[in-house]
């Protein structure tokens, strides 16, 4: 999979944008600025997904990550950070020794990864120039403009999920349900927690079952 021409130009533009915005996310002073830079990073990464032929995942990333998760981040920043601004500028980073250690380890990680990638890079280039790429390009339908090809990835993802990934799909749904219930529970105020208990003002248990005069449950 070798990009060339305008695609390689777009690759470098979006890749450098993602890296610079990621760096600024970590280094910004204001938390809202960090959130904005993270949105730029996520959109650049979505553009890289489109270059790789995964348009469905790019759409999901913009809708879910940028439109859901980052909006949630911004809400919580507004709720939580505003009073921090009133106290004046707090320190951003940990102590210099911690920062130095973290940067050294991150640099070691980067060098290790670069070494591994460079070592296997000739093998990627050689395998990518195999006939598979030409077969794939020949077998896809062209789009309406006649220039790009419609990659059938959305159909393939759907087919794969529903044929082979049915159980993980359902587990992911249950995970989302648990996350919803959990986050509602975690964000309750003290008054809401007290009012949802079945106790009266003295702390005695109050039954919520309605009984009629004979002591039976009402309606039976």
């Amino acid at each position, binding site marked *: *999979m*070798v*990009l060339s021409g305008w695609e390689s130009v777009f*690759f470098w533009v979006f*890749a450098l944008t*993602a*890296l610079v915005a*990621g*760096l600024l*996310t*970590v280094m910004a002073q204001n*938390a809202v600025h*960090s959130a904005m830079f993270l949105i730029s*990073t*996520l959109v650049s*990464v979505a553009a*890289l*997904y489109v270059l*790789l032929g*995964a348009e469905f995942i790019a759409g999901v*990333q913009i809708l*879910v*990550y940028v439109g*859901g*998760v980052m909006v*949630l*981040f911004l809400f*919580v920043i507004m709720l*939580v950070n505003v009073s921090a601004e009133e106290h004046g500028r*707090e*320190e*951003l980073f*940990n102590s210099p020794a911690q920062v130095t250690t*973290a940067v050294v380890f*991150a640099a070691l*990680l*980067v060098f290790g*990864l*670069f*070494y591994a*990638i*460079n*070592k*296997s*890079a000739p093998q990627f*280039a050689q*395998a*990518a120039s195999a006939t*598979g790429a030409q077969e794939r390009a020949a077998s896809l339908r062209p789009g309406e403009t006649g220039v790009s090809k419609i990659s059938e990835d959305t159909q*393939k*993802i759907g087919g794969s999920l529903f044929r082979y990934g049915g159980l993980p799909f359902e587990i992911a749904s249950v*995970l*989302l349900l648990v*996350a919803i219930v*959990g*986050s509602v*529970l*975690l*964000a309750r*105020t003290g008054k809401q927690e007290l009012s949802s208990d079945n106790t009266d003002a003295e702390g005695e248990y109050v039954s919520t079952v309605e009984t009629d005069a004979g002591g039976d449950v009402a309606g039976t």
Partner: protein
Amino acid sequence: MNSLITPAFILLQGSSTLDNMKQSLQHPDLSKFLIIGALLFAIGVAGVLVRRNIIVIFMSIELILNAANLNFIAFSRYLQDTGNVNAVAGQVFTVFVIVVAAAEAAIGLGLVIALYRNKETIFADKIDLLKW
């Protein structure tokens, strides 16, 4: 060490390796995507370790997850080009990673709100009740 010494060697050795490097820069293939993913991952890790604000730590975790997603999708496209049957598995797994990231962000930010209500702070080093 290969990655550190190579640029110096290229400048010393003459034009053929320089042409190779120019070629690989003008026609990026899988390895360039992996390098971008690796750099994003390292930036995310540095962000988690360095910042004090809990919400910025969460945002660095999202950077890490995005780097992993980029790796998955780059390899999915590479496997499609080399004719592997299970090539779309990378994109399927990316969907699951996005789902888990959304769930984790929801719960993590709920925790941050609950923490702020009790301790009035969002800085990671001020939350030290369990410290010895």
